[in-house]
């Protein structure tokens, strides 16, 4: 009886593992860096984490719908290079806002291309987005072959130093997106998303618009990647055609740690957000504890393996017992 209650709890709260990891890593971080909750430190951490968090939100939606998006890093790179070359260090804030809008359109378009191939032409998500990731990354390098360019310092400062009510700007951004998720997931769309990711044939027989839902997840993911690209550009203040590449895998890791099933249909967005923060904190701990950076890879990898293997290991133990 106890066991089934635990099952029910983990089924309803797939993010529990992420929460435990988050608290654990935060405690360790607090030990090595006692001022971590001071306003300045918190803000400087959160503004670094935010781009991955935004990307992980989009990735979470795609994975919930039964797909995966490997092209998000490329989209970030495009957005970064477009902003850095079109606005420039001397650009006006008006230019910046204009190109932020353009960036979002780029994200939507890139996501729509992925979605078209996957949902309408029924190509495999992992192959398709792997292919388009080169397309997008190549485009970014075409726009800006060598690191350079930038955005006005005033805009960068707005992102880096805003702390309304003494809280990091990132908190507000996260809160907004979580609220949007809470709302959409309680609409019919949310049910469709879980049904398509859970068992697409059953969803089809129940007259769920499967293709539309799949398409939409890639568009959302592209849009979130664009937000992520805007954030990382404001953070760095400059352009680099390869900036997004390493972020892709981190976004997938965040989703896995966040308790979403890679097969789709299980999880949410809050878990992946916590997962992304946890990843950032681990990086923090390692740089503060003065350990070699390969530890970071090792720790991350271990967490992923544990997160992925946990359900299998549990079921093996259960079989033994019965």
């Amino acid at each position: 009886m106890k066991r089934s209650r635990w099952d029910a709890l983990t089924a309803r709260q797939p993010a529990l593992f992420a929460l435990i990891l988050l608290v654990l890593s935060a405690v360790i971080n607090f030990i090595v860096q006692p001022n971590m909750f001071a306003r300045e430190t918190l803000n400087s951490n959160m503004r670094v984490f935010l781009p991955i968090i935004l990307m992980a939100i989009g990735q979470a939606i795609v994975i919930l719908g039964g797909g995966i998006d490997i092209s998000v890093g490329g989209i970030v790179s495009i957005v970064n290079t477009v902003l850095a070359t079109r606005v420039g260090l001397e650009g006006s804030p008006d230019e910046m806002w204009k190109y932020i809008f353009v960036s979002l359109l780029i994200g939507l378009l890139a996501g729509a291309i992925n979605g078209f191939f996957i949902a309408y032409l029924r190509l495999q998500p992992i192959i398709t987005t792997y292919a388009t990731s080169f397309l997008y990354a190549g485009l970014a390098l075409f726009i800006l072959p060598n690191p350079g360019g930038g955005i006005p310092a005033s805009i960068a400062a707005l992102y880096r130093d805003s702390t309304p009510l003494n809280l990091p700007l990132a908190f507000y951004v996260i809160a907004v997106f979580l609220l949007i998720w809470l709302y959409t997931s309680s609409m019919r769309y949310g049910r469709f998303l879980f049904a398509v990711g859970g068992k697409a044939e059953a969803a089809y027989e129940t007259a769920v618009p499967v293709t539309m839902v799949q398409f939409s997840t890639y568009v959302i993911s592209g849009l979130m990647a664009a937000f992520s690209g805007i954030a990382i550009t404001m953070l760095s203040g400059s352009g680099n055609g390869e900036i997004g590449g390493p972020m892709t895998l981190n976004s997938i890791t965040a989703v896995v740690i966040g308790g979403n099933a890679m097969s789709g249909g299980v999880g949410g967005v809050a878990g992946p957000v916590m997962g992304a923060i946890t990843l950032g904190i681990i990086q923090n701990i390692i740089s503060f504890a003065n350990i070699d950076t390969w530890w970071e890879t090792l720790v991350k990898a271990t967490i992923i393996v544990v997160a992925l293997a946990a359900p299998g290991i549990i079921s093996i133990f259960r079989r033994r017992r019965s």
Partner: protein
Amino acid sequence: MAESLSARNIVKHYGGVVALSDGNLDVHAHEVVALVGANGSGKSTMSKVINGVVVLDQGQLLLDGNPIQFASPQAAKNVGISTVFQELSVVPQMTVAENIWLTREPLNQFGMVDRKAVNARTEELLALFEGTFKTDLNPDSSVTSLPPDEKQIIEILKAISFDPWLIILDEATASLDSRQVQRLFELVTKWKENGKAIVFVSHRMEEIFRIADKFSVLRNGRTVGAGNIKDINEKQLIKLMIEKESVLGFLRGEAKSDAKVEKEVSLQAENLTTESLRGVSFKIHKGELVGIGGLRGQGQRHLLHSLFGDVPFSGTVKLFNKEIHFKHPREAMKNGFALVPGDRAKEGLLYIRSILDNLLLPSWRRYGLPLNVNNAKKDATQTGSTLNLKMAGLEEPVSSLSGGNAQKVVIGKWLMRDPQVLLLDDPTKGVDVGTKAEFYALLNRLSDEGKTILFYSSDDEELVGLCDRVFVVYDGMIRTELAGETLTKENLIAASLGVAQHERATP
């Protein structure tokens, strides 16, 4: 609310296979129509035509006398036609309430799903089956955690949740217990009074005679009879389901069964039990060709797979009086067992690999290290010609072969190991008639050579024509054993349906 639906002269092909050649059905409000027929007679296709899951090739659907076409399941739903699918259409990861109301969730003024309303309405639906649940079933239960019968009930509730006028129950009672069936029938009676129509697809004679008002019989894709259930009895109904003349011209080897008597027992099982088998015991002799019959999914596959060490079981199995208990197919293979699985694309073949690779997959070890590919090729070529395998070359991928030839590769890969015990899981499914005949000849030859063959088939005719004996499996047990004069199609179908065995079939 509509009054009647008619299907007229429906034709439906799946690729080259004709599922329906002349399907007809009439359903009116206030009545329950039983749609009956043997395995593969087209019942499921018929219900899928009516509910818009498949698009018909020829023929006509009439709603209240007016022609109508369904391009999708949604189109059929829109006119009030609802289906309880045999392979459930529930999403396991979602809750009971989420599944039942999927696409029809009540929304509040902000477009959000009104959880309170959803739960309240789900409670109302669950109340219909109150008292028959083994678990503490509530709207928030996750469907994965439910036993099969309760999943089936959720599927039923989902189908009736939008108050359809026509409900198709496709094998809906197969996983229900008697109390749940009783409750369902009470509901069916009530729906009938309220002007609904029900199509009841079932194999269970007892249930058909209990609940149906009318019947419609399909045989080989044609509707061969329809009428009032009170004008017919079980025996007559079964007779309608059976083919009159045999299409296939194969026969058992002349006087073969006589020679069997003194042969030694090769394979013996006592009280074999698995998840879906409830104590199966049998003895098979050397050189005997034994069939396993019965409705689909009664445990036949588990029987073959447990003998092959693929599915854990309890009980005793003896091969030539030596106890064996395989825990892995590897052990079974070492002892001369071979299994031709039921799903050749998934379990039987590496589809994109070459014919050579597939044929040699179980026997590569024999060709040394490094592999003697030339010898391997020679052997493969020989097997290919024994089987009369039609191919462009050994290097061609299996995916280039037709269904029948692909199945030959599955059998060939085991023949290369010269197995002593051959287990076959519906090997002629989706195989053309010519290849079927070749298979029958091959099986006859193998049994003459002294191989022990255990052969599950969903084709009743094949079992009757080919096998020395047939075990009819029903609900995880060998219900009836048919041999010699009792091995007739009529008896086989009657036993499959769980009907007490009739006295010998009238000629």
